[in-house]
């Protein structure tokens, strides 16, 4: 049992993590992730890569929906914009991949200003519908702008070569995704503990009080949109690279729902929650397939034929179960476990 938290400087008070064991376990996790590509088979490795990319996107959505409380059903629009921005810049105009990644952030961020503007007046369901419309408009625009996007034919992209390192191999590409996901995690954690993050949360919890505290509501809502779209766009570019082909069909609307499911399952408004939620949702279809496969081979076959339909059913089921039994999400459960552990054998 620990007796308390004793701090001697203000620097310790504002630190990200104040306990050495957390740093130790995080370091172990990072080492495990670095070792993973050499241990895992190619199927498991691709699953890991998708989880890392999804985590990046979920962290992006978390800034808007989790921190600022603005519900977006159109985040797939930012994903696809980011993927196309990268594909057009790198595959079509032969720019440096880094410029491509930057563009994959900047272009969706600019687009988010357009969809963010109505958010200054809309709330809740109305905003959700507006963002939904945005994602469909984006799809149509991409299909129509054939001179730039090849329309329905899509653009094939090759994995980049940067700083003399080729990210063509699966292991190398996983490292790229790992690096970007880790940077994104730290970026969002840092935003959360600064004045910007507090302003976002203040807008979510009580916008009148936020304005009386001197927070410019319009500017900060747009800032939340821009930051969120920037990160999501980069995740979109990575996903395009993962598929090695960028097309509108590669980014179905289900991804928007999946992203919201991740946030609810993980625990709204928490970066750790977004990561935990990604892991659960990412592994859920696989785990279900394996478990059901144990019972009969027919079930296994069902998964290969109706993967999309079963996925959306699973997401729905998981959202309902979490809202009913663990509304604070995985991160809430984690806090409860940790409290019990720290205070044991006392109740609290």
């Amino acid at each position, binding site marked *: 049992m620990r007796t308390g938290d004793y701090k001697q400087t203000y620097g310790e008070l*504002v630190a990200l993590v104040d306990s050495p064991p957390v740093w130790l376990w995080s370091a172990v996790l990072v080492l495990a992730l670095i070792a993973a590509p050499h241990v895992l088979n190619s199927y498991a490795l691709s699953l890991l890569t998708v989880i890392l990319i999804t985590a990046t996107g979920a962290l992006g959505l978390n800034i808007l929906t989790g921190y600022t409380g603005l519900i977006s059903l159109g985040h797939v629009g930012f994903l696809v914009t980011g993927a196309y921005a990268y594909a057009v810049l790198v595959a079509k105009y032969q720019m440096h991949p880094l410029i491509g990644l930057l563009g994959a952030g900047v272009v969706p961020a600019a687009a988010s200003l357009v969809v963010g503007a109505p958010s200054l007046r809309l709330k809740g369901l109305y905003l959700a519908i507006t963002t939904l419309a945005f994602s469909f408009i984006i799809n149509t625009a991409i299909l129509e702008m054939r001179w730039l996007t090849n329309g329905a034919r899509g653009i094939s992209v090759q994995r980049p070569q940067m700083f003399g390192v080729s990210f063509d191999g699966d292991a190398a590409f996983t490292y790229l995704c790992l690096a970007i996901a880790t940077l994104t995690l730290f970026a969002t954690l840092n935003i959360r503990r*600064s004045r910007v993050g*507090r*302003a976002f949360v203040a807008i979510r919890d009580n916008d009148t009080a936020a*304005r009386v*505290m001197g927070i410019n509501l319009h500017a900060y809502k747009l*800032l939340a949109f821009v930051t969120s779209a920037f990160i999501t766009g980069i995740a979109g570019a990575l996903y395009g690279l993962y598929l090695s082909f960028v097309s509108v069909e590669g980014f179905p609307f289900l991804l928007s729902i999946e992203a919201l499911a991740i946030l609810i399952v993980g625990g709204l408004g928490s970066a750790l929650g977004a990561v935990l939620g990604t892991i659960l949702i990412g592994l859920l279809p696989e785990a279900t397939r394996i478990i059901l496969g144990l019972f009969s081979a027919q079930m296994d076959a069902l998964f290969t034929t109706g993967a999309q339909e079963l996925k959306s059913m699973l997401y729905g089921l998981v959202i309902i179960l979490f809202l009913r039994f663990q509304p604070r999400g995985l991160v809430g459960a984690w806090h409860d476990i940790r409290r019990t552990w720290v205070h044991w054998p006392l109740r609290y």
Partner: protein
Amino acid sequence: MTALLAIENLSKRFGGLQAVADVSLQVAPGEICSVIGPNGAGKTTLFNMISGVLRPSSGSIGFDGIDLATIPPWRFAAAGIGRTFQNLALFKHGTVVENILTGRHTHLRSTVLDAVLWFGRTRREEISARQRVEHIIEFLEIEHIRDAVVGTLSYGQQKRVELARALACEPKLLLLDEMVSGMNQEETEDIARFVLDIRDELGITVLMIEHEMRIVMDISDRVHVLNFGRKIAEGTPDDIRRDPAVAEAYLGGNRAATTARTTTGADA
């Protein structure tokens, strides 16, 4: 001595309802002023206009040499106006410290890029902000609850956190909307003591709405009385106690005129 807050002929209409009508009042620097009046007199509407929550229908609010109509509402905090709300308006998922830190918003400069990098400007700012917050926590004697989530605190404690958050803005003028409603005797006395300390030690001018006559009469330098949106009286607590118009507003009708002295006197 020029007034810190100078309200001229201020009015607010909601459709057919005249919530505030032609109110003028002045608050001098270093004063503790009270606004009293029966329910629905327009006191909170007046506060909402001073703090930028509502725009006036007509009239002007001058604050510290600027006309508040010329700046957007979110700049009021930076201009030096802080407030608490009648029905708590805390960020209820955050801890006490986080809530108070939010009050430091206008005093910090980090952009989102600074925040992402963290080291450098943002870390420096966060440390100094945290230092200020700890001083405020000590000042208001809420050390024991500093890491609690505000949603789990009692009403009186939450009110005190709101006061702390308003102080973190370092306002020149602090608007307190019914601080002591629902508090017991001891908590009320604590708040009265804090209000005096806020004026005397921190040099902040206080304008408060209060129904609790003891605190109004004990610590106010001036009292303004509203009824049906109009100002019906102004003066020192003693003047107000003797004012027949005030007694009539509170007690109604002709009966009030005869009982005015005894009732309000006893109340105070």
